[in-house]
């Protein structure tokens, strides 16, 4: 690599110290004079090559990459929208609400398909299906389920194998989990039946896909439902113990989105970063060299959750209350 980036471990003003991040790294440009602050829910490793190629083009910038959960992003950003230049999150609903509430800056002239952007301010750059991930050992001699219906049958057929060995997002904590759950519920009643079955067998609830995959690998759990396909596939390549299943009855595909804060300190640089990100992710050439899944070009976003104000529906307090109540009563059974 032609440039050097390093983690700076020095004292920052109190407010940054006061906040705890899942991860926080500074990528130093070779000739840095300004620092772009990116608030993100995506693990640093996925973004490293993107930031690296960006800094190669713009050595006068440094990038401070801050990682935290989606719900936290929403809270922290709403409190201080001027502290962050770019916000990247997998929770489309929260992102859309931020853009709807005027927190996103409009970027003119970005050539991006209509379905992958909203108001020229919120831009999608990945297509990532929710997946069923299983521990292969638990399905030894059995066919892997291909649909939710088949999963329900498999669970019912061998309840002893699966009791206490199921996992899914805790939708109360995880923004992405809530998004997947609500979209599933919207698509089909099968979701509720699956939740009931999973609830009856005892299900562990997780905050993040990573933890779920870890537990799958070592056999703590046998089936995880609604795991982020991109993370699981990445693990599958190095770990033969797990299998990733994209349910063929109906896909739930999330798009990671990013926007420039309306009160960004460096709006031009932030816009450049977002443009760079979009062009990398839409470029079929860079498909294999980047760890993040690209924005699917074939389906024209048909199967993906639509970027539209309807995403606000399940963020509504009353709706959320009702949904969570129902969800809890289905999955957390005594």
């Amino acid at each position, binding site marked *: 690599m032609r440039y050097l980036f390093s983690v700076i471990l020095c004292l920052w003003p109190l407010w940054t110290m006061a906040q705890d991040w899942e991860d926080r790294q500074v990528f130093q440009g070779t000739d840095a004079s300004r620092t772009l602050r990116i608030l993100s829910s995506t693990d640093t490793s996925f973004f490293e090559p993107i930031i690296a190629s960006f800094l190669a083009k713009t050595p006068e910038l440094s990038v401070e990459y801050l990682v935290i959960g989606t719900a936290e992003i929403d809270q922290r950003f709403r409190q201080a929208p001027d502290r962050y230049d770019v916000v990247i999150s997998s929770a489309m609903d929260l992102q859309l609400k931020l853009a709807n509430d*005027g927190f996103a800056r409009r970027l003119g002239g970005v050539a991006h398909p209509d379905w992958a952007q909203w108001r020229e301010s919120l831009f999608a750059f990945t297509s990532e299906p929710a997946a069923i991930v299983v521990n292969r050992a638990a399905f030894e001699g059995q066919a892997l389920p291909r649909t939710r219906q088949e999963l329900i049958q498999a669970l019912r057929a061998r309840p002893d194998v699966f009791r206490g060995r199921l996992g899914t997002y805790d939708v109360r904590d995880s923004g992405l989990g809530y998004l997947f759950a609500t979209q599933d519920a919207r698509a089909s009643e099968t979701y509720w039946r699956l939740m009931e079955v999973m609830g009856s067998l005892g299900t562990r609830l997780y905050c993040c896909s990573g933890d779920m995959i870890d537990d799958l690998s070592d056999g703590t759990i046998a089936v995880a439902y609604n795991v982020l396909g991109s993370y699981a596939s990445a693990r599958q390549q190095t770990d033969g113990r797990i299998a990733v299943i994209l349910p063929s009855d109906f896909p739930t595909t999330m798009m990671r989105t990013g926007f420039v804060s309306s009160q960004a300190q460096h709006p031009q640089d932030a816009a450049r970063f977002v443009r760079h990100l979009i062009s990398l992710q839409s470029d079929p050439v860079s498909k294999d060299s980047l760890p993040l899944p690209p924005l699917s070009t074939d389906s024209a976003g048909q199967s993906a959750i*639509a970027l*539209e104000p309807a995403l606000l529906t399940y963020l*509504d307090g009353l*709706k959320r209350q009702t949904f969570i109540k129902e969800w809890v009563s289905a999955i957390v059974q005594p």
Partner: protein
Amino acid sequence: MTEGVQVSGSLRTRLAITLTGGAAVLAVLLFIVVRNYAAQIAQQGQDSILSASVTSILDAAVIRDGVVEIDFPYASFSMLSTPMDDRIFYAIYQDDTLLSGYGDLPRTSGTATRAYQGSPVRLVTASRVLIGANVRTRISVTVAQTQDALSGTLSRISRNVALFGAGFFALATLLSIWATATTIEPLKRLTTSVTRRGPQDLSPVAKPVPLEMVPLVASLNSLMARLGQSLKQSEDFIAEAAHRVRTPLATVRSYAEATLQRVDREENRQALRSMIRAIDESSRAAGQLLDHAMITFRADHLERDDLDLVDLLRELVLRLTPVAEMKDIDLHLQADGPVIINGDPILLQNALRNLIDNALKYAPGESVITIRVDAQPRVQVEIRDQGPGFPPDEIDGLTGRFSRGRNAAGTIGSGLGLTIAQDVAAAHGGTLALSNLPEGGACVTFSL
């Protein structure tokens, strides 16, 4: 042609301004009306979708165990998607407490447009009373949407309507130019037909004219008729007068001549000669006047005939030979062959007689008068004599009525000969040109 006429504006301009001005006003009116109408319809469209959204939320409201639950459908908001990605806001109130949504959204009733978060939003509010086991509560829902798509639609409509209006205006202008031209056309045609007329042509306008021009043309016709009438009357009068004068004069002259034979005293003879001369003078004048009046009258309606000009001149020469011989003048007619023309023989004869008569009168004795007839390049008769020629300073005015040259002092004449010749030439569409020959002598060119 137009001098002496007072001009007050132009019919064409007035008509054009009225028409194009009217078109402009119509175009602007069209723009305003269509735009407003479109704005209204577009706004109605947005309002009805917002109302549908509000209704679908209200419909989902239920009281369960005394608590309000509103499990509104996904469609409540997805129906609000627009191509311009308009932002949406909503607020749900139970009586006066916010249940969920945007608490700072302005509370309105019915439909309204307000500014919210820096941009104009359209708000639709409706409410519904829920009755539970022992509660009675009012749920009111407001859904609001920015107006980007609406204003996009409106500006597109405005642009189209503006283009349409401009096109309409351009077309109307072209049409008004055309209409003005066609309206003015008959007037122009009348003008040219009146302008093109010969000075003697007082016949009524015969071509059909538009209804509106009938009074004008009718009074023009009647004016010309009266003018023609009075002209003819005065011509008749002159002819009659000349005739009446000539006959008694001839009688008086014959008496005077007879008396001259009998009178011996020189002074009496002198007086008688002066008397005869005066009589000749008067009779010549009367004759010429008569001819002139006849020519003026006939110029309007020539009695044309095919005739040989050479033939006509030969006859004339024959008739004038006696007079020429008295002065020992040789009349010489030159022609290469017959020259056939279409003309009024009486008038032509009269004109040419006057010209030859002049040559005889003003050229000295024992000279030659050459009369040359040419058919090419145009038909013309040239009469040359060997006299003193026209006085150069007077040559331009000699064709005028009663105009005589300095050299004519001793000769009898009225000054109408050249006038007659010129009028005849003009009546046939020709000209009369006077010049002096370099070797001396006058040259009159009568061309047709």
